């Protein structure tokens, strides 16, 4: 039961984007389309799971005062490995996602989970936590991207159903703030009533 909670808390109750408000930079920056949001979310999930596992494994070997630089090195290494491997073995995927991969390093969710959860819990719980948080992040980015794409480009997951340009401001940075604000208000309402 407790392990299940570790996994599911990332979806709504502690959703990194809508509730913890972590990782705003990639959230606002890359969600101009649903596919971009989903891609960024999944890439982040992968790094989150790997870094949570490694941090949970080595947590006792790292003196407290140098834990943050150690975690950052571990995370940055994973991100670079993911970037190089994608570029080498799945160039088509890298083509569409490559842009976001380096951005994962600066995503404070990854460091936040390493510091806030993995450094205090065992490997299995940490992996579940990383997976749940990552999927929650991916879900939030996909929703945000879908809404912005829908209003800003008149399409859904790249399928166009409106000719020409739609309400452009939704694709531009202010649109990200507007949509995110309304989504957070909506989720808060849901959490209050549930």
């Amino acid at each position, binding site marked *: 039961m407790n392990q299940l909670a570790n996994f599911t808390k990332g979806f709504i109750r502690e959703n990194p984007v809508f509730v913890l408000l972590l990782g705003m930079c990639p959230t606002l920056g890359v969600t101009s*389309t649903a596919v971009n949001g989903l891609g960024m979310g999944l890439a982040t999930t992968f790094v989150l799971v790997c870094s949570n596992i490694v941090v949970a494994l080595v947590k*006792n070997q790292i*003196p407290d005062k140098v834990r943050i630089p*150690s975690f950052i090195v571990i995370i*940055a*290494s994973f991100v670079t490995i993911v970037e190089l491997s994608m570029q*080498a*073995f799945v160039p088509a995927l890298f083509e569409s996602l490559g842009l976001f991969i380096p951005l994962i390093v600066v995503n404070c969710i990854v460091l936040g989970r390493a510091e806030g959860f993995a450094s205090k819990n065992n490997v299995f719980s940490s992996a579940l936590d990383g997976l749940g948080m990552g999927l929650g992040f991916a879900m939030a980015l996909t929703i945000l991207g879908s809404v912005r*794409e829908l209003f800003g480009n008149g399409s859904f997951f790249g399928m166009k159903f409106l000719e020409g340009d739609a309400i*452009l401001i939704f694709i531009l940075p202010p649109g990200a703030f507007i949509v995110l604000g309304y989504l957070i208000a909506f989720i808060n309402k849901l959490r209050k009533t549930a």
Partner: protein
Amino acid sequence: MGKKESSFKNMLITLFVITMLAALALGGVYNVTKEPIALAKKAKAEAAIKAVIPEFDTIKVFKVALEDGTDSLIFNQGYKNGELVGTAIESFSNNGYDPTQVRIMVGFSSDGDILKTAVVQQKETPGLGSKMNDPKFKDQFNGKNPNTFVLKVKKDGGSVDAITAATISSRAFCDAVQKAHTTYLKDGGSK
């Protein structure tokens, strides 16, 4: 086992070991992926050549210096049965929105018309400048002769419809195509 104490020695050793392991892992991955990455890039450039000029059986590759002599562009002349069918020029612009070069493959017919264009590399804003890859933008160059079709966005007095909300990326694209054309003419054009 409890936490290690934050003594100077422990901190030094920990950071040293972690950074060394990371460096070893990254070095290893880099070596393994170096070749596939180079191959993938080459395959992409070749696909771009095939996309912008008609079918060919042999190809002649050479470099031509830019007009200002600062750099050179790669010319790929495609021949079919000994006849020149088109020249694919890999051009670039440093004026994109992202510091990464925008690299465009431009195909020219022997009359000096633009056949087609293809994006080889770009890191423009996703959803805005990245739309330079959409047919809606890049196909407007097809079949145009840059002598009459001014390679500038309409805002700057040219003939190109810019991508909405991505004028800078559109300018970079035009800049790259313009460079290709200038160098093509300098090299003797249809010779």
